[in-house]
């Protein structure tokens, strides 16, 4: 466990040091993969299916707010739909606008969820989304997950109907439109999936906030079971042709991803839980404090090695002044005061010296550099 905690601290340190480059890089990768998948799955507009365009747009997304990834992805999908038939693009535009006007207003920060939901559906691992969303986000993210599933089913309906739409003539505009609209509205799989994911997100969110030991693990397992049960019941009622094996494999993967998220977001040591009770003039307080697991990275930095000058050597014993900073090694402990404060304060400054400088000024300066 200590090794894992050290690894986590290393990752945190690397991320905090290189955040300015890592965040744009991650955004770039997400935008790049999203646009590539869109081009690969839809790809009706051949001009857009160009790696140079994808790279330029992904590069732009890396420096723009994450909501812009949705904007460009929507634009790409609409252009592909337009190339297939303008009626399809009309349906897509209406759906996007309705989502934007009615739903995104209340959860504008969940743009990643909206992007990742259809992306993971395409990659056949959608069951990760409700668990991860319930663990990280709030109940309002249900809307974003629902919108993401709608987008996935819109795109898959268009992909499945593409050959039929192509075979239709120019004069069959309303028939094309009806084909797409019916394909979405009559899609029972979509309804079952939205219901299952929405309820799962809420179950995971509510359980993980409970004041019981291992609440996150309980929330994950309960969420996965809820998801499986609703999907199976939906399959029985509406014959959604659900693949039970893929649901089970996806659920195991979701559990694994959930445990990784738990490790990074909520790694606590229940064996050292403290329960205290106190009161003031107005209230009785029953407080349960669970310490976080944390470990300080061991570092060793030689700051300065001063050779003795001739004048100093004559006055004092010969030697070198070496200032070494070490931080605590391997023992994990609690930091109840928050913000990981304990982690940064566990280091100690040790002065190995052959002499102590006479003018305290120099010595203080070295210590000052060490501590801050």
């Amino acid at each position, binding site marked *: 466990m200590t090794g894992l905690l050290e690894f986590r601290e290393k990752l945190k340190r690397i991320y905090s040091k290189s955040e300015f480059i890592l965040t744009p890089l991650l955004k770039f990768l997400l935008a790049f993969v999203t646009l590539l998948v869109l081009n690969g799955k839809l790809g009706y507009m051949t001009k857009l299916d160009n790696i140079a365009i994808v790279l330029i747009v992904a590069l732009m997304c890396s420096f723009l707010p994450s909501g812009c990834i949705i904007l460009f992805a929507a634009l790409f999908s609409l252009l592909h739909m337009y190339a297939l038939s303008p009626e399809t693009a009309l349906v897509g535009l*209406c759906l996007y*606008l309705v989502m934007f006007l009615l739903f995104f*207003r209340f959860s504008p920060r969940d743009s990643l969820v909206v992007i990742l939901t259809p992306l993971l559906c395409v990659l056949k691992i959608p069951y990760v989304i409700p668990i991860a969303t319930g663990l990280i986000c709030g109940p309002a993210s249900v809307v974003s997950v629902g919108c993401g599933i709608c987008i996935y089913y819109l795109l898959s309906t268009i992909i499945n109907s593409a050959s039929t739409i192509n075979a239709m003539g120019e004069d069959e505009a*309303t028939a094309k*439109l009806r084909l797409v609209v019916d394909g979405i509205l009559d899609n029972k799989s979509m309804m079952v999936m939205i219901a299952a994911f929405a309820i799962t997100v809420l179950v995971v969110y509510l359980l993980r906030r409970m004041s019981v030991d291992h609440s996150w693990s309980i929330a994950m397992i309960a969420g996965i079971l809820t998801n499986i049960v609703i999907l199976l019941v939906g399959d029985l009622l509406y014959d959604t042709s659900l693949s039970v094996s893929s649901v089970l494999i996806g659920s195991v993967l979701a559990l694994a991803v959930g445990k990784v998220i738990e490790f990074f977001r909520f790694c606590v040591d229940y064996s050292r839980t403290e329960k205290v009770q106190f009161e003031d003039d107005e209230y009785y307080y029953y407080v349960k404090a669970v310490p976080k697991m944390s470990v300080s990275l061991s570092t060793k930095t030689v700051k300065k090695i001063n050779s003795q000058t001739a004048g100093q050597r004559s006055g004092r014993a010969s030697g070198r002044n070496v200032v070494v900073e070490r931080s605590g090694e391997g023992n994990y402990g609690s930091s109840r005061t928050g*913000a990981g404060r304990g982690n940064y304060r566990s280091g100690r400054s040790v002065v190995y010296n052959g002499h102590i400088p006479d003018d305290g000024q120099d010595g203080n300066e070295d210590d000052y550099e060490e501590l801050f």
Partner: protein
Amino acid sequence: MLNEERIILMTKLAAYEAGEGKQNVKIGNYFRSDYIAVQVLKSVVSASIAFALVFALYIFYDMEQFMQDLYKMDLVAFARNVLIWYGVTVVSYGVATYIICTYRYSRVRRSLKRYYHNLKKLDSLYRE
């Protein structure tokens, strides 16, 4: 001399101002009734546009049938039905907005109260 407590407090305040606080301060500048009224108004406009889009799609979906029935149907009853649906959509969305914004406003006020309390604490640390 560096004061560690002051630095931690300043870091927390700066992180709040750069992130969540930016939006919260904007919301906190409104009176409760003004904020909710503006949001409900925006919702009415959004719901109206969304309804118009869906209605247009509905008409286009069954355009041929609609054009055939246009001269036979009771236009007043049809318009009344459309208006009822429009009213239901706008009112239900407006009510949902009202509930969400009321909750959001009270949460933001609590958050800003903590922020201003910390600001005062920082000020007192400087005066020590």
